[in-house]
């Protein structure tokens, strides 16, 4: 068997090793590649810019640890834009670990002078998925009586002005798909469809294809998908954060996969030619 035929059946471990190197090297020594801004991200940015100063937005932290690397940078970049406009933030979560991610991301706002209870609130986790979200959308106090830190929700000034989903100027989910929590479809049904609240999607890269129809149909105002969108948003708000650094590693990973797929096909073509030649002889 020649080298070219061998390309068809390379050992998995060779690929694993090369992939580990392709990701590790640019993480340690960044390449500093520039990202361009795609239309879905620009639409999101422009929509947030159009919100009046002092608006209140609702963010669902509907993801788990594995997806933190893609979704937390989206939240942090968005929060910087919110801070510039003094937009107030309420967070909820459909996974038990969600409030902890919210807590970590909300530190961006705290560091920029936001005050808890007045400018931002972390309500915590709700069980029961879409049904509970629907109940929350009609009457938040029916689901949350205490916030994540144990404070009475009724005592928080920000929550006193929220009587239903319609009181939010924007709702958003940062979600990793239909993985047990409330994902895009559930949020769209319970926010924009049920209460007319403008909606924005933040999702992992793999969900981009699934969420685009909502943007094209005009049901949502923007879509942020994956680390790439977070990197673009960081560029728009003028910072170089985790997402910008992560794009170098992602670049190398994508190129390596494409390279391997092409090599496999080259091997297949040569093997096929050789076997055809053999048959002729």
């Amino acid at each position, binding site marked *: 068997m020649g080298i070219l035929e061998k390309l068809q059946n390379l050992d998995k471990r060779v690929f694993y090793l090369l992939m580990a190197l392709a990701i590790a090297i640019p993480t340690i020594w960044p390449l500093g590649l520039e990202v361009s801004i795609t239309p879905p991200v620009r639409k999101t940015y422009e929509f947030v810019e159009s919100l009046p100063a002092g608006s209140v937005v609702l963010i669902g932290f509907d993801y*788990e*640890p*594995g*997806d933190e690397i893609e979704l937390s940078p989206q939240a942090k970049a968005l929060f910087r834009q919110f801070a510039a406009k003094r937009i107030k933030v309420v967070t909820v979560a459909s*996974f*038990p*670990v969600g409030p902890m991610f919210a807590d970590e991301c909300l530190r961006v706002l705290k560091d920029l002078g936001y005050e808890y209870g007045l400018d931002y609130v972390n309500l915590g986790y709700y069980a029961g*998925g879409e049904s509970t979200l629907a109940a929350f959308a009609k009457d938040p106090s029916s689901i949350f009586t205490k916030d994540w830190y144990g404070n009475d929700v009724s005592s928080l000034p920000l929550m006193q002005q929220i009587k239903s989903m319609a009181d939010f100027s924007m709702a958003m989910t940062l979600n*990793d*798909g*239909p*993985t*047990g929590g409330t994902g895009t479809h559930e949020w769209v049904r319970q926010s924009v469809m049920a209460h007319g609240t403008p909606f924005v999607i933040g999702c*992992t890269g*793999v*969900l981009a*294809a*699934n969420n685009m129809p909502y943007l094209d149909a005009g049901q949502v105002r923007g879509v942020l998908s994956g680390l790439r969108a977070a990197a673009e948003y960081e560029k728009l708000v003028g910072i170089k954060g985790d997402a910008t650094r992560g794009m170098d590693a992602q670049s190398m990973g994508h190129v390596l996969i494409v390279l391997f797929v092409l090599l496999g096909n080259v091997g297949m073509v040569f093997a096929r030619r050789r076997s055809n030649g053999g048959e002729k002889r």
Partner: protein
Amino acid sequence: MFVAKRIFDFFALMVACGLIGWWIRQAMRGANIRIRPIAGFDAIDEAIGRATEMGKPLHFTPGFGGLVAATFAGLEALSYIARKAAEYDARLIVTVSQPETYAVTEQVERQAYLEAGKADSFRPEDCRFISPDQWAYASGVVGVLMREKVASNIMIGQFAAESLILAEAGNTVGAIQIAGTTNAYQIPFFVAACDYVILGDEMFAAGAHFADNKAHLGSLRGEDFIKAICIGLIIVGAVLTTFGSNFLTNLLAK
């Protein structure tokens, strides 16, 4: 009385339910409704047979979802698989992610063993709740596949990003793999790594395929009629919008 902008939705739902209900009634009265063969479902017997011949366990998981339609379709398949596994004395290991799904899954499996006349063969410890955390579930299932060296791996239900991790683990232990999900963006992963894939809403034919369930057959026919109406609306809408009319768009928004 009506909530604003939901009048059309209400009547659309009524028409859909009416069509499905009418065809269920027709099917129960003996209307001749047939479904095309679905390779993934047909391969399930082969997967059970392989596990029996090799004396190795068979693994099934309804995925990561809660009690949603895709999970119920998976449980329909499980009912058949558990009955056949009981008949052939093949060991069936079921892994579940969501707690509410676990309760229903165990009941479905227990009932299938009872129907096969082998209630005593059901081992509750082989119906395993893993974790509602996505990656804990994924690693738990990979652990089961690797430790138990399963001969066949069947994954039908709601799957997200863990799909490929499970499928590659099954591939590594050399199991015959059958997968099905309605999550369009996970289907490519299954196609790449599994032997048979049940595509999208083909899953909802599980009850009709395995049990010749009249209600299921009727509802499938009803669904086909609704799809035909939707296709008609899409074509008419595209033509009207192209010629500058917003009639259909406005009607749908009523």
